[in-house]
C-alpha cells in the first residue's frame, strides 16, 4: 500500500494540470461560442464548390 504515497499526489498533480488547461481554454475564449465553429468546419467544402474559388481567404 506504500505506493499510494506516490500515486495519490501524482493523480492530484495530473488533475490540476487538466484544471489549468481548462482555465487557459476558457480564458482564450474557447467556450464563448459553441455553435459557429461546428459549422465553420464545413465552409471549405462550400468554397471548393465555387468553380473559381478565390484564393487566400483570411478565414
Amino acid at each position, binding site marked *: 500500500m506504500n505506493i499510494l504515497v506516490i500515486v495519490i499526489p501524482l493523480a492530484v498533480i495530473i488533475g490540476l494540470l487538466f484544471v489549468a488547461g481548462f482555465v487557459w481554454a476558457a480564458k482564450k475564449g474557447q467556450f464563448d461560442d459553441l455553435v459557429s465553429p461546428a459549422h465553420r468546419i464545413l465552409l471549405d467544402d462550400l468554397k471548393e464548390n465555387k*468553380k473559381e474559388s478565390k484564393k487566400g481567404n483570411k478565414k
Partner: protein
Amino acid sequence: MLNAQALESTNCKQCNEPLSSKQKDFCCWGCKTVYQILNQDSDFELINPSQKLKENYQFLDDPHSNKNYINDSGELRVYVEGIQCTSCLWIIESLPEFSKDIYSSELDMSQNIVTVKAKSFYKALQLLAALGYSPRPLKIEDQAEKLLLKSQKKLLYKIAVAAFCGGNIMLLSSSIYFGVEGTLLRVFEVLSLIFAIPVVTYSSTPFYLNFYRSLVLKRASIDAPIVVAILFGFLLSSWNLVLGSTHHYFDSLSALVFLLLVSRYILSRTQQGVLKLNLLENFIKDQRLRKYDPETKKWTWVPNKLISKGDFILVLADEKLPADGQVVSQAISVNPALLTGESLPKTLVKSDLCFAGTTLLSDKAVIKVTSKGSETRLGRTLNQVEKQLHSKTNLSLKTDHWAQKFTYFILSLGALSFLGFSFINPQMAIERTLALIIIACPCTLAFISPLIQSLSIKWAARSGFLIKSASAFEKLENIKNIVFDKTGTLTKANFKVISTSRELTVLEKQLIFNLERQSDHPVARALVQFVGPQNITQIIDFKESLGEGVSGSYNSEHIKIKKIMSHTHSVGFFKNDILEFTIELGDELKDNLKNQLQWLQKHYNLHILSGDRHHIVESLADQLNIPASNIHSNLLPEQKQKVIQSLDKVMMVGDGANDTLALAYSDVSVAVNAAVDSAVQASDIYINKDNLQLEKLMKMSNYVAKLIKTNLLISLVYNVSLGSLALMGFIHPLWAAIIMPINTLLVLGFNVFMFYRGRKAL
C-alpha cells in the same frame, strides 16, 4: 456540385434542411444567395437585394458620433436576425468579398452577433440588410456588462475547480465506503476535507454573494437554503471527522455545488442577454443631420449635438425625421405609423409641426428644428420607458418560492430533531440532522428550476420567440388580458385595395397603372399592385400634388385619382371632374391572423389599443370578432400606458415607438417581428418570425408550467419520504452518496423527455 443538386421540393435546395410550408426552395436568405453565387458565375454580387435598412445608420461612419458603437479595436457588433444554417455563416463571413470597404466579419451563431471591422460600417449594414438579415447595431458594453461577462467566465473556473475537487472526493469516499480501515481511512478522510475546502471557499462564492445581496435588499432568495446546506454540511461533517465518525458528506456536498453551478451557467448562456437594456439603446442622440450652413449656402453633415434650436435641416425620402420641428417646405407627406400608430400617411403643410421618428414619404423636406434628442416627443417617451424598466424588479420565480418554503420547513424540522435527539444521544443527533439536511436539501428544486428555464428558453428560441429572462416565460401562465397594438402588429405595414365600387375596364386599369406608377405614395403603390402590370399608355401633363392625388390627360380627357375628403379610406377616379368609381383601401390583416386569434379568444380577453382613427380600428375589430368595449383608439403613448395600468395580468403585444411605454408597464411584453429597436428593448419576448404565433407561445408556457408543478410534486414526495427515513436513522452517508446522483439523473432524464414530448405535441 454536391449540395446544389435539386432534391425534393420539400427540402432547401442549398442546405437540404426541411422547409416549412411557407418557404419556397430555400430555408433562408443565406442559402438563396449562396445558391445563386455558386450556380451563376457572378462573383459576389447581389442579384436580388432583399430589403433596405429601416433606420438611418449613416452616423456609424462618422468618427464623432460612433464612439458608443465602435470599440477600441475598431469593431462594431451587430445583432442579426434570420440566421439558420452554414450558408448564413458563409455568406456573412464573406462580406469582405462584396465590398472592399469591409475588412472582416465574424459571426457568432450562438448569439446571432456579427463582429464587423470596416472602413464603412454603414455599407456593411446595408449589405446585411440586402442579404435578408435585419441588422441592429449594438452599443459597446458598459462597465456593468463587462463585469457580467467576466463573472460568467469566472463561473466556468469555479465549475472546473468544483469538478476537480468533487471528483477526487468521490474517489476517496468510495474507497471509504468499500471498507478502507486504519491509518489509510484517516488519511482519506483528511484528504476529502482538504479537497472540500476549495469547493466551500471558492466555488460556492456566487451563492454567498447572492445570499448577501438578498439580505441587504431584504428579499428572500433561493440561495439562502443552499448556503445553509453548504455551510452546515461542511461544518458538521468536519465536526464528525474530528469526533472520529465516518458520517460525513463532503462528496454529496461538492456534487451539489457542481450541479448547481453548471445549471446556472447554462441558464445564463441561454437567456437572450443581447436584447437587454442599453445595448439596443435608441440612437436618436447619435444621429447625423444635414444642416444648412448660411455662409457656404450648402447642406453639410453635422453630428446631432452641434444642432441647436432654429437650425434648418434637410431630410430625404424614406428617412426618419431626426428631430421635432416645423415644416419649412410647402407641403410634405409623412408616415407616422411607428410614432403614433396611424395607418394612413399624413400631409403636413408649411409651419405644421412634425415629430422625430416619423418617416418621410416625399422626396425631401426642410425642417426648422424646435427640439432634438431626448427633448423630442419620442425622446421623452423613451426616457420614461427607461425609467420604468429600471424600476421593474425581478419577481422571484414560483419554483424558487416553493423551494424556500420547503427549506425553512426542513431546517426547522432539523433543529427540532436535533434538540429532541440530543437528549438521547448527542452524536446521533448530529448524524441524523446532517443526513436530513443533506438529503432533503432542495437541491433538486434549486437545480431543476434553472434547468427547466433554460430548456424552455431554448425551445422557445427554436420556435421563433427570443426570451429575455425566464421569469417572463413563467408569468405568461397567469395572463388574463392580451392587448394588441393595431398598425404593424395586427396589420401589415402597407395598404391593400379592399374593394372597388364597380368592375374596372381594361382601359381604366391601364390608366390607373400609368398614372400611379409615377408616384411613390403608399396609396399609389397599393393601387399599382392591385391592377397589376399593364401596357404603357401615353399620359401627358402628369401632375402629382400632395393631398390632391395624381392627374394627367389621356386622349384629351382629364383623368384624376384623388382621396375623397369625407372618406379617408377611399380614393375616387375622376374623368373630366366627374366621379366614375371609388376604390376602397385599407390596411391588410396579417396572414392567418383570424385563425390564430380564434384560440386566444376562447381563453383570454383580447383588446386593441391604437393611435389610429376610431372607425378604422372598429372595422378591424369587427373582422376579428373583438368586442367594441375592448377597443381603444386615438390614443397617445401615455394614454396607452394608462389603459395598460388599468388592466390586471396583462400582456401587451406591439411594435412601434408609440407602444414602448405600454410595453414597459405591462406584466409581460411582446415585440413582434420588425419592431423598432426601442420596442424590442422594452419587451420581455421578441417574436422574430413573421407570423404572430401567440397561440403556440401560450400553449408552450402552459405546458412548462404544468411540468414545473409535476417536478414540485416529485421532489416533494422524494424529500418527504427520504427525509423521514433520514430522521429514523436509516440513511447512511453511503446511501446519500448513491441516491443523490441517481435522483438527479432521473429528474434530468424525465425533464429532457418531457421537453422532447412537448416539442412533438405542439
